[in-house]
């Protein structure tokens, strides 16, 4: 009896923290015991299921190539990563780009610029451009998710690099894709957004360039990034779609595009978990569930 109660409590708890079943966690644990790790299977798992939070960072690091598939290389490679972080940071200190009180996010930006050979001379530094602001937004969100600065830097850097490399060409087409799926789900809402002039003013760069960093709270955001990191940028369209559907009444009630843009750029932080859950369901409905044996 007591055991039953405890078990019920436990699965209710798992439900709450995002495991739809203990089974999923177990199958992930089996995947993680492989040596070398099967990166493709890990991607598929992450596309289909939410990652248990205790394994999330590890899986992200493998999917982003920060750690190689061979688990017995992990200590060596982790040491290389750590040294590289320290080398670049120390150089920036010596050049006085950063000092003890510089915020980590700015340090990460300068490190990223140095490594990509895009660092200006100190005397020629300008205000951060749009691309820098996108980086900083993603960095601020990642900082909330990851404690260790070395891990944090590598995750931001590889996330941004992979995102631009894999999806750079698709990003400009995402607004059209959003319009398409909105016409399927709610053509009245689409018509209203179009005629009121709101459609062109939606916060596309916040949604599609920053991947909702600074828009969704981190607990919801990381479930979206699971999908982005494992290979989908389409998920971003469905999050945007579900946001529009969730605030339909409010959106239908206003014809001022600026007010719509302002509201959507500063979303209420309450029911974002539900929005993400519904968006993932919609995404599976339209794009199918990847059918790898996991």
């Amino acid at each position: 009896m007591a055991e039953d109660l405890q078990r019920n409590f436990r699965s209710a708890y798992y439900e709450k923290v995002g495991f739809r079943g203990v089974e999923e966690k177990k199958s992930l644990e089996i995947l993680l015991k492989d040596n070398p790790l099967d990166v493709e299977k890990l991607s598929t798992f992450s596309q289909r299921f939410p990652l248990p939070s205790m394994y999330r960072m590890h899986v992200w690091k493998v999917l982003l190539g920060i750690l190689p598939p061979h688990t017995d290389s992990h200590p060596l490679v982790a040491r290389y990563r750590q040294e590289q972080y320290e080398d670049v940071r120390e150089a920036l200190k010596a050049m006085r780009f950063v000092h003890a009180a510089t915020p980590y996010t700015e340090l990460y930006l300068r490190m990223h610029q140095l490594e990509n050979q895009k660092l200006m001379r100190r005397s020629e530094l300008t205000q951060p451009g749009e691309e820098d602001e996108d980086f900083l937004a993603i960095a601020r969100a990642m900082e909330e998710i990851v404690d260790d600065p070395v891990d944090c830097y590598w995750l931001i850097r590889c996330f941004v690099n992979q995102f631009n490399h894999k999806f750079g060409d698709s990003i400009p087409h995402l607004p059209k894709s959003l319009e398409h799926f909105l016409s399927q789900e709610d053509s009245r809402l689409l018509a209203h957004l179009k005629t009121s002039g709101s459609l062109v003013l939606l916060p596309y760069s916040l949604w599609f360039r920053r991947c909702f960093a600074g828009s969704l709270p981190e607990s919801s955001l990381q479930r979206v990034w699971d999908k982005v990191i494992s290979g989908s940028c389409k998920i971003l369209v469905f999050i945007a779609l579900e946001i529009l559907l969730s605030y339909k009444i409010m959106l239908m009630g206003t014809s001022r595009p600026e007010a719509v843009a302002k509201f959507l750029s500063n979303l209420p932080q309450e029911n974002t978990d539900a929005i993400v859950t519904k968006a993932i369901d919609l995404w599976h409905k339209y794009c199918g569930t990847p059918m790898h044996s996991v």
Partner: protein
Amino acid sequence: LLENVKSQAKGQLQASENRYLAQKHVTQALQSELLQLYSQIEINNLANSTP
């Protein structure tokens, strides 16, 4: 097994090369900063020596 060993070696080598590349980019940045400082100092010296 052979492929396995090869791919493991590749993973290690890539990470090592990446670390090396970062050092190279650090060198370039340091050099360009130094160059800038030296020319700044020369300008200052010139300005001070011509009263």
